[in-house]
């Protein structure tokens, strides 16, 4: 579904991603791991078109999308919940979700999806008329994910969905993510919480200082103490 081929990303003279290739097949959950500053967010930004690709190509459903702007990529079915959630704090939960479905013309389908997700996340129904900014961190993360789902994406990218959340909330969020597979979604999940991410992911990539250090199955990485030690380090929980 998504092919990233030798992509580099530059910020001015600084190269943040060095010729990285990765792919995500339909129905897969792929996780992109790596320490702070590894270039994970830059990679997602290049895929969604928020930063230009300096070299290489991004292909989605067989078509080169390098030259498409972000809005067109979203229209094609790629979406991202950005790092730090970026819930619209001045809009209500309802308005956040309506805006999430901005590209859709099927009002009936939108209303149906909204009901489905509100049933899945009763807390969002409870907070429906409250401002996004008044939600807790975990609730905001749920809102951000559901908002992204409202666009009816084919590929959903999540940038550090567990960032800054309490452990029980992290569990909830990860449960939600692995449940999305059953909805026919394809997922690319950026995480620093490698151990958790590897539990639900099919395959994993590891970035470090902008270079691809590992590509393989999650199983392979999870079960190899050496690999975990080499790339993820001990301090992870």
């Amino acid at each position, binding site marked *: 579904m998504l092919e990233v081929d030798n992509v580099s990303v530059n910020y001015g003279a600084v190269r943040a991603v060095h010729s990285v290739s990765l792919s995500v097949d339909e129905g897969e959950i792929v996780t992109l791991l790596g320490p702070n500053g590894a270039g994970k967010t830059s990679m997602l930004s290049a895929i*969604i078109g*928020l930063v230009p690709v300096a070299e290489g190509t991004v292909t989605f459903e067989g078509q080169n999308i390098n030259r498409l702007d*972000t*809005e067109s990529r*979203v*229209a094609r079915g790629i*979406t*991202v919940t*950005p790092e730090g959630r*970026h819930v*619209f*704090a*001045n*809009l209500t939960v309802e*308005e956040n979700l*309506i*805006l*999430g479905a*901005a*590209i859709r013309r099927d009002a009936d389908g939108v209303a149906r999806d909204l009901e489905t997700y509100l049933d899945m996340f009763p807390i969002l129904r409870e907070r429906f008329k409250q401002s996004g900014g008044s939600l807790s961190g975990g609730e905001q993360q749920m809102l951000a994910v559901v*908002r992204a789902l409202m*666009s009816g994406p084919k590929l959903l990218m999540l940038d550090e969905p567990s960032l800054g959340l309490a452990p029980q909330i992290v569990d909830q969020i990860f449960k939600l993510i692995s449940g999305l597979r059953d909805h026919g979604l394809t997922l690319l999940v950026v995480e620093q919480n490698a151990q958790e991410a590897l539990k639900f992911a099919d395959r994993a990539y590891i970035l470090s200082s902008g270079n691809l250090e590992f590509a393989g199955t999650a199983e392979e990485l999870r079960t190899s103490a050496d690999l975990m030690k080499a790339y993820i380090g001990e301090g992870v929980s």
Partner: protein
Amino acid sequence: MQYVAEQALNALSIGAEYSLLALGLAIVFSVMGLVNFAHGEFLGVGGYIMYAMALFGAGDIWMILPVCLLTVVITAVLLERVAFRPVRRAPATTGLLTAFGVAIILQNVFLMGVSPRPKAVPAVAVLNTTVDIGSFTFTILQFLEAGVTAIAIVLLVVFMRRTKLGLAMRAAAHDFTTVRLMGVRANRVIATAFAISGFLAGLAAIFFIARRGAIDPFMGLLPVLKAFVACVLGGFGSLPGAVVGGLVLGILEVVLIILLPDFLAGLRDAAVFFIIGAILVGRPQGILGKKAELGDKTA
């Protein structure tokens, strides 16, 4: 009593005019961080189109009003397209300089295309017709200004709350990138902001010119400054703040005209700005602005 009622309506109508202009400035600023100092020239565009229409025999007021509104809206959208879009990613000061450049160009178009001297525009003067209600005397214009502004504000609120584009504009004021991640085109959001600011300025142009009865190339200068002050007073970038700031400014002006003895009348503007300065010392964020410290996240 009669005097108070008349002056109250007067203050309300002048305040409404400032509010219309301030709202336009605030809408554009809120979505793209641009202080459009060429906003005052929208009054000029409206004024000169009225003048031209009367000159060419299309002076019927029912023709003039819609054409004036439409022309100002088109001008606003066009300016965004040719002048502001190319510098959108540039630093804020570049946008500001562009706005000054646009203002100067438009002033010179008026100046060289028509005349450096004021021209009478009697076409909308009928709005100054007075009506007597009991013992009170008002002009149609005063009612229209207060009423039309109120209606425009209600429509704007409905638009911002009930339409996807309106939601996107409110969201963009805090986080434009994420609005684009929803698939909403940045160009559409910004063009809409300019169209709305042009529409509100077109309404203000009609009232402004009805009140003054004349146009000149630099007629937009003082109004845009006052609209700017109204925005600062209300809390910059806040739409309710722009309305409140405009009204307070109008009321202050009228109250000071009444209170200041004749020999001090020339100090009216100085006194108005002194009072506004005092308000801002007490509330630096403006009347409705949120208090923010350096380093606060705005989202």
